[in-house]
């Protein structure tokens, strides 16, 4: 473990602490009875349950003791209980996480792979008409709110053309059915990932292009494709890795919207239902889990960055 990564870990821990504090204080700072805020609004529970909950969460005790109880709960994986859905929040979220990760994961792989390749090409050939068209397309797509593109795709490819199914992760739980059902949602999300990486990569390659080594390689008679995809790409890819931090949070949020449009029962639907029912325990738990996923993804990116860029490995920064 080197210095840069350990410093990052400290910062991420602080970030996590902020999220935890937020989730802890929000229901307790709301006007009115905190029990109601911890139970959710649109739900019928008996006074008996409310009383047990007050004791369990220590709501009659000072805040620091409540926080202690809360943290102990978190450490044992207790994210609270959803009274509208009669499940522990942890169970509810964990059962949906794989699906959302499948959607985001595959979309990211496709989006990153094609985005990086197309971005490199577009950056290298930046003067050609085709490159300009591609870039313009990328900029326009990145200006569309994700849910809107989802809606348009739904009405065109599902409703009008009937190429894709209306809902669900599958009809029968087999690979083919899953692939068929997830294709359009994944493509929609992948398109966003693609254009973002296209634009970043294009900019990065443009800078690399003007350096001396590509020219030198060219003079050595190395084939063009090998220069672009072998050397330039490798050097230009660093900004992609740094931007992974912002991107992952964004892509995950995008996935939530896409799940709603395509009736996929993942975290996005959990969130949507929780908003409609004002199911606070679920909303808080979800926020916490999303924050943790983003932090983990960033940590992974930092380690990856260290492997790719030797300067970071030596603990230098900037």
């Amino acid at each position: 473990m080197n210095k840069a990564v350990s410093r990052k870990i400290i910062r991420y821990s602080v970030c996590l602490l902020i999220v935890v504090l937020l989730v802890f204080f929000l229901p307790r700072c709301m006007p009115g009875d905190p029990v109601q805020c911890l139970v959710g609004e649109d739900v019928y529970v008996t006074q008996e349950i409310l009383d047990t909950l007050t004791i369990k969460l220590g709501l009659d005790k000072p805040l620091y003791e409540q926080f202690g109880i809360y943290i102990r709960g978190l450490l044992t994986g207790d994210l609270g209980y959803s009274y509208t859905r009669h499940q522990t929040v942890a169970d509810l979220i964990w059962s949906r996480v794989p699906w959302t990760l499948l959607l985001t994961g595959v979309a990211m792989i496709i989006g990153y792979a094609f985005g990086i390749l197309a971005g490199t090409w577009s950056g290298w050939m930046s003067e050609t008409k085709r490159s300009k068209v591609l870039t313009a397309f990328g900029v326009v797509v990145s200006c569309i709110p994700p849910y809107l593109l989802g809606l348009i795709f739904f009405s065109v490819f599902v409703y009008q053309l009937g190429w894709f199914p209306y809902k669900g992760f599958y009809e029968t739980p087999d690979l083919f059915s899953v692939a068929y059902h997830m294709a359009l949602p994944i493509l929609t999300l992948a398109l966003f990932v693609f254009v973002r990486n296209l634009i970043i990569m294009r900019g990065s390659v443009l800078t690399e292009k003007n350096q001396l080594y590509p020219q030198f390689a060219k003079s050595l008679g190395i084939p063009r494709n090998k220069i672009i995809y072998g050397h330039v790409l490798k050097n230009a890819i660093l900004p992609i890795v740094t931007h992974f931090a912002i991107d992952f949070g964004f892509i995950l949020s995008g996935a939530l919207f896409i799940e709603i449009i395509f009736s996929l029962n993942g975290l996005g639907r959990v969130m949507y239902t929780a908003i409609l029912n004002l199911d606070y325990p679920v909303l808080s738990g979800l926020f916490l889990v999303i924050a943790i996923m983003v932090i983990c993804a960033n940590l992974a990116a930092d380690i990856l960055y260290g492997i790719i860029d030797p300067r970071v490995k030596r603990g230098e920064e900037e």
Partner: protein
Amino acid sequence: MYEKKHLAAIGVILFAIMLVFCSGCIGAAETNQDAVVKIATPNEITEASYFGNYNFAQMTRVTTPPLVQVDENGDYTGALAESWTVSSDGKTWTFTLDSDYQWSDGTPLTAEDVTFSLEYTAEKIATSPAWMKNATISTSGNTIIISLAEPVYRLCGDLVTINIIPKHIWQSIDTPEEYISNGPYVGSSAYYVKSVDINSATLILAANPEWKGEAPYYGTIEIHWFATEDAAISAMLGGECDTYWKYGAAFPTTSVALLEASDKFTAVQTPSLKMSYVGFNTITSEVGRNLAFRKAVGYALNYDELVEISASGYGVSANSGFIPNGVPYYKNTTANTYNVETAKTMLDAAGYKDVNGDGIREDTHGDVLTVTLLTRDKVTGELIKEYLEKVGLNVDYKFTSDINAWVEVKEAHAYDIAYNTITAKGMMMDSGWATGYFADNTVGTGKLQNVDDPAFLELCAKISTTPEGDNLKSLISELQDYYAGQVPGIALYWCTDVTPINTEIDGWYISKATGIYNEINLLSIHPAD
């Protein structure tokens, strides 16, 4: 001889007709195992929990039916119970079971199952009705006797939501609301739940082999749920599903135009028990307590436009007697009329004059007359605000986007006029006939509870302890006179339910409570010729 020949001829003809009918019946009596009917719904089953998920509970009602159900006229008819009687004091209810119903795993359905279900629900489910806690249930043969401590005349209203479940399955499950299973679930009617899959968003009902009644045509019923109403409707219009259903709600009125444009579907309109209204804060608001003001507002509202815009034309403008035509003991009262001039004159007469001539009325102290309008509905709220402004009132518009914020304002009595809606179920809750929405001694979040007039509360108490019959009829008549005379609220319009009917299927039966998703309908639908 001549006559005999005739008789013989008639006999032969009759026999032939009978044969044709019988063969038709036999043809229909056979379940086509491959035939599937697909229902699209925006009611999502978020987890496969029979008791824990509200929508799942609604959808399984046709497989494990309650004792009684609601028919197409809004009356109660038997489901699991073939017939029932109630003693004159309202304390003893006797139900006789229909032997057609048998558990799909081959176990016979007995009165024991009913007793178990009622007791189990009372014990394990938080929202079970109060009378269940101290009722004694006894059985003899295939009859069930419910003995109550207090007379309950509207018992059927509660029984329609209590599913009768197999004792041999559920008795070992201690926390039913947390119990999750993807099926199959043993059922007793013509269908049972074969599987439920929240990943593919599909609930599959299969024909119950043990069912002794008339056989349904369709071997499989599939319910597909969608994240949004739009997605569900487009799946239906796109041919992916055969029909559309939503619990407690008809087809969205804004989309009916699409049905009319389609070849495959027609829209069937039925009068609804649902309605929308404005209520006055008659407890703390100065203007709300003023009867003359309330009556004046009655003339300020443009009822035709409300029907046109809020209900997209699928509603009828209401009467001063408040409760819709179609509710039992409805009587005709004067229709609500829109007349800005009358409203203005009445406000003037009530002492709310525009003294300084700025177009806005002043109250009796000479201050600007500001009325606080509370609403949860964007469209209707905006319209009402406009109408009130048109007669010279200054409107403080309180829009609350969620029920929680709405309840907060309501409970603080921090409004003068509030917009609200009444559901079919809510109409008959508490003492019934919409009283639950007015009486301030009821519980419930969606109710305004804006009347504390002792005369009204007394009337409600009387209604709830009076059995069906002429006495009740005269009380309900009195109630409608109260609504018309005291104007605790003004009915804006009575809704019209729109049900999309797939013309390729015949035999539709629409229940007043649950629309097309009811046992009778599932038995009667079959492909059109």
